[in-house]
């Protein structure tokens, strides 16, 4: 029967492999289901973590009323803002000093140092920082926030560095040459051409650093002094003791910030092409 219609699903496609689509869809569901359930239950009226008793913002309100949560949120923001600002400035300078240049002695060592926080397990860095900072704390008696800020700045540098460097490498070299040709001194060329063109990369870098700092648990847990809980270390402490629906609300709020930031970075990078 030459005229019979074959269902399009039965037609051979070189792209299809048996079971692959099923596993892929399952994978996406698995990736999102736990987060979705978490967010869903944060709006649960009841105090049970498993029983749905209707929609409510009760736990968000209760978390907001909790002084410890408020303090931790504030501290998280203070540290993340400072760390992302400092690390972005450092990373921008380092990116300018390592890209689009003839190879120079020590360049590989600089790369290795900048990317070191990405390669060394976080727990190792955290313990090393604990040893050094605890010694300094004991010697000087100073227990302020600076320890956390400098630790966060250091491990945020590679995250801020990556998008800035990528942007710089994509940048058309002839634009700066053209500016020099049109009487722009090196400094004015940087301010009027390089910096404006680099801005999306810097913005993406800063936001990435912000998210990374905001989400950090391990290093903060080891570096913090008494009473310096950030939102994630506060959560870690709570999880060990008692889990209240309040935790769902805090987690969902943190999640929302991350997702928002990452979506923005995605949009910025997309606009460029």
């Amino acid at each position, binding site marked *: 029967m030459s005229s019979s219609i074959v269902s399009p699903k039965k037609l051979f496609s070189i792209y299809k492999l048996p079971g692959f689509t099923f596993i892929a869809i399952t994978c996406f569901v698995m990736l999102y289901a736990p987060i979705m359930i978490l967010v869903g239950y944060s709006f649960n009226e009841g105090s049970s973590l498993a029983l749905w008793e209707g929609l409510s913002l009760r736990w968000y309100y209760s978390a907001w009323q909790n002084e410890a949560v408020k303090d931790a949120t504030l501290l998280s923001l203070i540290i993340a803002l400072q760390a992302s600002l400092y690390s972005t400035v450092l990373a921008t300078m380092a990116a300018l000093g390592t890209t689009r240049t003839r190879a120079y002695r020590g360049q590989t060592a600089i790369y290795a140092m900048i990317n070191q926080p990405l390669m060394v397990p976080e727990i190792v860095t955290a313990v090393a920082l604990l040893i050094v900072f605890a010694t300094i704390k004991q010697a000087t008696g100073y227990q302020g926030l600076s320890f956390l800020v400098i630790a966060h700045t250091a491990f945020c540098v590679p995250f801020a560095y990556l998008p800035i460097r990528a942007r710089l490498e994509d940048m058309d070299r002839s634009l700066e040459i*053209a*500016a*020099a040709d*049109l009487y722009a*001194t090196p400094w004015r060329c940087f301010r009027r051409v390089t910096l404006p063109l680099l801005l999306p990369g810097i913005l993406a870098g800063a936001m990435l650093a912000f998210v990374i700092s905001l989400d950090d648990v391990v290093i903060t847990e080891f570096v913090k002094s008494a009473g310096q809980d950030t939102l994630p270390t506060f959560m870690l402490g709570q999880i060990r003791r008692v889990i209240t629906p309040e935790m769902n609300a805090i987690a969902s709020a943190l999640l929302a910030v991350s997702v928002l930031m990452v979506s923005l970075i995605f949009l910025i990078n997309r606009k460029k092409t």
Partner: protein
Amino acid sequence: MTDPVAISVNQVSKQFGQGADAFFALDQVSVDIRENEFFTLLGPSGCGKTTLLRLIAGFEHPTAGHIQLHGEEISHLPPFKRPVNTVFQNYALFPHLTVAENIGFGLDMQDKPAAEIESTVTEMLQLVQMESMRDRRTDQISGGQQQRVALARALAPHPRVLLLDEPLSALDYKLRKGMQIELKRLQLETGITFIFVTHDQEEALTMSDRIAVMNNGQILQVGSPNDIYDRPSHRFVADFIGDTNFLSAELVESSSEHAVVKLSSGKNLVTGPTEATLNNVVSITVRPEQAVLIDDLANADLQGTVTNIMYSGTDSHFHIELPSQEEFVAKVQNAGPARRDWETGQTVGIKFHDNAVQIVED
């Protein structure tokens, strides 16, 4: 041609790479470019023409030699201190600025007052007929329009010399023809010296006052388009520009006014003077359209057997094998009066036009 010299390039060399990788992009190049001239650097890619342009612009610095602008040494000035502007191959328009801001950029960097920038930008927009695009972003205009903006931007600071780095290579054929006329008009209107880099010999011939033909980091010949085409000094020049035939001949007479070469057929022909050594074998070149095919073998300069006939619309190309094993191609106009009903295998005579033969250096 008594205009004073604008750019003087003196014994300039440029080396890239080190040690075993080292190579000379320019090898002791000297050339004088006059004021008010449309000067073209012509050559295949990698010949050093863009390097020479970049040295004049100040994007690179010479390894040796001097570059002078109106008698003033500029070899080691940074680009922002040279009254020379460039039109880039890819235009290099600032994507974060509007058309008008791009054109005004150079004046702004020179700290010109806003009113002057404003009026110059307007003038430049008129000059390149882009008034309506003033506030567009540069990625919202077509390739041809970007080309015009790039030109206007480079002309706005009124440079002493304008450098153009293959500015037409990104345009399609039609736009390119239009821009060639436009560029020539702009050069005449502004009276600025244009130094134009191209690998397109046709473009070079139609637009230039003078052409420098370059190969392997050296300038082989400088001259008017006519000189370059009709009196090539080097085998490479003759070969690179248009089609041509090369033959071996013996130099039998040489003086300061003329020279005489003896062809493989035994015929003697008079050519221009040469520096080649007497009684040596030299290469001569004859353009395919500078010869006619005739029956009268006795009267011919050469004779040979037709091996192939290629029809190409306006003319036909006759491939003729000479007794010396050399191949000669004669171009015969299909609409002209010359006889062209030869067939392959026939023996024909080849007669050169007057002054058709040119001795070239290998």
